[in-house]
């Protein structure tokens, strides 16, 4: 991540005053909208409409690929732009609309046409249709890619039509809500030709992790070696795949320093040393890796998050590390017997058993 929050300029306070007033947005939310760009992975009237709404709200917009099509004239671009490269043409149009819409953001999400392969940057809003109904899917960083792919089944790319403006406006709103954390990690919406909206039923996520067998085996070996104490560590994910990083369990040291605050022992609790934890996160950031999961053992315990684990991972009912899963491995007499993969979904941790391949 970058440095701390940047204050809004006075002209931004004036321009976005109505948004700042909204509950759940405020100055912090408006800064998030300014700092999270939207990359258009497709063109067409709906996407350009979304670009107009997002750009007006201060969100930087890039793309789309290809040339301006004849059906796009009137949606930010003009008839004389048809046949021109779409991305620079849109940048010029956005600059006229709002200069904040063309600055380099800290990160990019994306707007894509359905069916999306699931690899597009998150937050992702995918737009398409089923028959004559418009379909919008929204996926935050926490959303399961397999569930998203499941939702994409049976969808087609969007086509230009009178409902493009409505679809584009909804896509922009959904993108903003994902950025602000106001939308669930995965959501879907179907809009009929008459404008009636229905929420798509979502699958209960039962998918396992993107965890290489060798990485899981390495983690398990470490946890077994730590028995009877709780071994712990993390799995990081980067372009080259996943890697296991063992971390010492610092609980005993903290309990020795402050037994009232840390009343248990390292056989029943784990704690990352804050300085090591921070150093690891900085290293991961420098390597463009992200935290895939936090791993710990339950010596002679159950392969499931305990009430204490849940309270630590989601204090106040909100996940401390959004998008990060938890792997809990039961160790009986020094040998791993079972594991569970827990992912935050719809306000709670959903756990699935994870086979321990040897």
């Amino acid at each position, binding site marked *: 991540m970058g440095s701390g929050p940047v204050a809004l300029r006075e002209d931004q306070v004036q321009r976005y005053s*109505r948004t700042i007033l909204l509950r759940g947005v405020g100055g912090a939310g408006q800064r998030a909208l300014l700092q999270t760009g939207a990359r258009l992975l497709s063109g067409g009237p709906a996407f350009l409409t979304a670009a107009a709404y997002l750009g007006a709200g201060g969100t930087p917009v890039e793309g789309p690929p290809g040339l301006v099509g004849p059906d796009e004239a009137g949606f930010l671009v003009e008839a004389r732009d048809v046949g021109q490269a779409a991305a620079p043409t849109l940048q010029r149009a956005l600059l006229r609309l709002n200069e904040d819409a063309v600055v380099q953001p800290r990160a990019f999400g994306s707007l894509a046409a359905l069916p999306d392969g699931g690899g597009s940057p998150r937050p992702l809003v995918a737009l398409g249709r089923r028959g004559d109904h418009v379909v919008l899917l929204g996926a935050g960083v926490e959303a399961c890619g397999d569930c998203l792919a499941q939702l994409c089944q049976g969808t087609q790319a969007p086509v230009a039509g009178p409902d493009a403006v409505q679809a584009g406006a909804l896509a922009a709103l959904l993108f903003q809500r994902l950025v602000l954390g106001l939308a669930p990690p995965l959501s879907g919406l179907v809009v009929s030709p008459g404008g009636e909206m229905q929420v798509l039923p979502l699958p209960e996520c039962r998918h396992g992790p993107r965890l290489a067998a060798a990485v899981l085996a390495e983690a398990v070996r470490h946890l077994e070696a730590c028995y009877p104490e709780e071994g712990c560590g993390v799995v990081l994910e980067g372009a080259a795949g996943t890697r296991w990083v063992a971390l010492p369990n610092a609980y005993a040291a903290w309990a020795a320093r402050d037994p009232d605050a840390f009343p248990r022992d390292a056989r029943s609790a784990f704690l990352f040393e804050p300085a090591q934890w921070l150093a690891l996160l900085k290293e991961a950031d420098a390597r463009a890796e992200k935290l895939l999961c936090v791993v710990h053992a339950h010596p002679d315990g159950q392969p499931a998050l305990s009430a204490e684990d849940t309270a630590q991972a989601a204090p106040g009912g909100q996940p401390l590390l959004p998008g990060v899963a938890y792997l809990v491995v039961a160790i009986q007499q020094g040998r791993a017997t079972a594991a569970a993969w827990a992912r935050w979904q719809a306000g709670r941790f959903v756990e699935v058993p994870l086979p321990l391949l040897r």
Partner: protein
Amino acid sequence: MSGESPAAVVDIRGEVCPMTYVRTKLALETLRAGDVLEVHLRGDEPRRNVPASAQDDGHAVLSLVPQGDGSYVLRLRKGG
């Protein structure tokens, strides 16, 4: 008690709606839960709307004291 020293002071006497509450809201965002914000305001509209909006957002109104010149000092405690 409203005698507690404020963590911050914001003067919105020269502002009109909606900037009166926008300034107040942005000032509240910089504080920690439990901190006191002192707001200097003028006029009937902010006198009615700023305290009401702050309460709607989960903050507590500690006091609203007229200053005798048409202005008021509003003290808010930031909610959690």
